[in-house]
């Protein structure tokens, strides 16, 4: 593995991890912008813009874009989160130049009014699709509740109201402020040709004009509310809990990952043994979400409505117990081995390495080879894990419940 990076004069950064034995390569344009960077009136514009980026450029129609990706047999798509918008393509090595040219070109979209109107309908359908997915709804409402006035509370998709009201001019303004080369990192992994890559990106992007792209970083003050929202259409009781956790920049992030695994991995975790194995809850999981300057520990439970209180009480008791004792040595070892083995498995695939290398750079301006990442993980001690639980007050959570029950 070989790491390379360079920066164009306009501020665009290119980073690459070369794996000569790979059969394919993956390239991603990581734009440091998402729902948290939107004003409330244009909420959802980041994600809508992500769709519009595939709708053509000065020299390509929307159908040209799709057809050219498919002509390469590319595995391609994009995703938008609270903090990032990422466009990517995995292709065979012979298509490197074409893939870079196409991705770079679509990052300067035409944003035609006619396409804007058609695509608005697609976004409204996507919002409707997630209306039928309770797990997603719990997550979205829990984020809104937890973050309160903080911009991380804004839903990535926006709402049917904000999307319906959005005008093309507002999207164009947002694009000009956020898609500055200073705010974009080009990430490549797998069987790449580095010199050629740097040249191809320079050819395609050197003329992009830089502007200052700011991100507001207000302090996070968790709401701590406990809200039960009745939804009579649902069969099962869905409960989400969220507490603070280390940020993406924190040295405690490895310990936080171990903490989440020990508490709520799908196998062999505290919540698995306390809730899933005895079938009190059908699902009980804890995950760690690291963000820019902050982080969250998210717990999800799904149970029979009649057993929701029991499941919740048990989960809370497990957290309280953990806070006094920390993990056992066996739990610590198992959690680290599971995380390491998952990283190794993902690391064998260009599409598995792309987000790891990309986010490392976007959040920390650093590159950590997989082996070093595993060394850092393995160095985590039981005290480190307990320290995260204590520092971030594991038992202080915001709750959002959705289902047949309207109260605990």
């Amino acid at each position, binding site marked *: 593995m070989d790491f390379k990076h360079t920066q164009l004069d306009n501020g665009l950064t290119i980073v690459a991890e070369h794996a000569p*034995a*790979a*059969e*394919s390569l993956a390239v991603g344009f990581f734009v440091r912008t998402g729902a948290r960077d939107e004003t409330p009136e244009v909420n959802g514009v980041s994600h809508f813009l992500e769709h519009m980026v*595939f709708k053509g450029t000065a020299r390509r129609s*929307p*159908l040209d874009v*799709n*057809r050219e*990706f*498919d*002509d*390469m*047999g*590319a*595995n*391609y798509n994009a995703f938008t989160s609270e903090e990032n918008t990422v466009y990517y393509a*995995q*292709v*065979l090595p012979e298509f490197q130049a074409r893939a870079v040219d196409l991705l770079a070109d679509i990052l300067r979209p035409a944003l035609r009014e006619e396409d804007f109107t*058609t695509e*608005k*309908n*697609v976004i*409204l*359908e996507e919002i*409707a*699709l997630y*209306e*039928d997915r*309770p797990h997603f709804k719990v997550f979205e409402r829990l984020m809104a509740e937890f973050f309160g006035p903080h911009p991380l509370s804004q839903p990535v998709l926006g709402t049917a109201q904000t999307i319906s009201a959005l005008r093309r001019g507002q999207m164009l303004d947002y694009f000009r402020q956020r898609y500055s080369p200073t705010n974009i990192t080009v990430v490549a992994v797998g069987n790449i040709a580095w010199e050629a890559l740097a040249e191809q990106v320079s050819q395609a992007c050197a003329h992009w004009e830089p502007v200052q792209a700011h991100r507001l970083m207000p302090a996070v003050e968790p709401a701590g509310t406990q809200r039960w929202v009745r939804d009579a*259409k*649902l*069969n*099962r009781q*869905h409960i989400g809990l969220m507490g603070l956790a280390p940020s993406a920049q924190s040295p405690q992030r490895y310990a936080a990952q171990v903490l989440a695994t020990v508490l709520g*991995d799908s*196998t*062999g975790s505290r919540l698995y*043994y306390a809730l899933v*194995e005895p*079938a009190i809850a*059908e699902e009980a999981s804890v995950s760690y979400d690291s963000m820019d300057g902050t982080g969250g520990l998210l717990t999800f439970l*799904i*149970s*029979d409505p009649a057993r929701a209180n029991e499941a919740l009480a048990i989960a809370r008791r497990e957290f309280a117990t953990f806070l006094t004792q920390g993990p056992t040595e*066996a739990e610590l070892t*198992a*959690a680290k*081995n*599971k995380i*390491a*083995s*998952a990283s*190794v*498995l993902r690391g*064998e*695939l*260009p*599409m598995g390495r792309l987000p790891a290398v990309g986010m490392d750079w976007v959040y920390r301006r650093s590159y950590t080879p997989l082996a070093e990442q595993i060394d850092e993980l393995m160095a985590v001690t039981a005290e480190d894990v307990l320290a995260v639980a204590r520092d971030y007050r594991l038992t202080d959570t915001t709750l959002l419940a959705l289902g047949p029950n309207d109260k605990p």
Partner: protein
Amino acid sequence: MAEELFVHQLDNGLTLLGDRMAHVVSTAVNVALPAGASLDPQARPGAATVLSEWLFRGAGDRDSRQLNDALDALGCHFDQGVRSHFLQISGSQVHQNLLAVLEIFADVAQRPRLAEETFEPSRDLARQDLEGLDDEPSRKVNIDLRERFYPWPLGISPLGTLEGLAELSPDALRAHAGRTLTPHGGILAVAGRFEFDEVCDWAERLFGAWQGPPAPAIETAPAQGGIHFQQRPTAQVQIALACPAPPTGDEHYYPFRVLEMILGGGMSCRLFTEVREKRGLVYAVGARYQGVRGHAGLFVYAGTTPEKAQQTLDVTVNELRRLGEGLEAGELERAKIQLKSALIMQGESTGARVGGLVNDWYLLGRLRPLHEIAAAVDAVSADDVAACLAAWPARQFTASLLGPVELNTTGLSD
């Protein structure tokens, strides 16, 4: 692509399959036993799913917790799953831990404790999953469609029915396990980094003495078919359709996979272009080929709000019918590149490859090297596609729809 395929038969009927890949450090393993949902006792649909959960609740010298902890300590990402024909136990880990994982899987397959006290929670998890289906409308229609489309019981839902689950007892399920957990017709497959001689030795030692009844036969009845609508207060109408397709191994198989790409592969495919890109009718629309032994279908899915649902159905069906009018310029070549490229890129995953081994063996009784598939795709001509369309036109639709409004489905009639 760098790969080496291996096949070895144990005397007791268990088949060992291997796909050795250069440049990886992981090994994926899959133990597939002929205990899938289509072998569930008629009165007790859901038996295989409960059994798959129960199997991991203690085996050999380990109780439930020790078993789980042992696999976790090895960094093994394991799972159990029930499909039409097989009950599968799978795991992925670094290659150094393969033997230790195989030792545990050998216990799970041959010496599960199936203890009285762990039965009820195993059944209750299956019951909860089944009841949760109402909160997942897209999953619900796709499961319903499979049940109706395939000859009974090949597409039967592994989740079973509430009545079937209620009928189960520890004794009945132990008896079922005795009939279906057998090396005959079973597969042990590995993909990634390993030495096959070593795997054969380990398998001989760990599974060689296993004796079991012959693989149970499945008696099939004609597919139910038809168009089924379920009224539900969902935000979107769920539309799921299927029509017959050539099974794997059929002379029209590869041309049909080309057609599948033209209709539903990538974002330039016809369905995505006509339904989403040009008309903005949906977020999700797609088509995929799927099969069991001897039968296959083209499965099409779209989800959309009630006002747009009729048009979505009509445009979708029109695209299926329009396939019969032949290909447009560039479509054949693009589809072939997409198929070959996906083959290589998905082939980088040990987990995907081990699944491919089991599928090939079950559907064809042999393994296809990746270069053979690539050559077969390359060889597909426009004439082959025309012949395939003549033999397998998009007709005889089975459909499952769910949502607040019922649609006019006369367009689905032949």
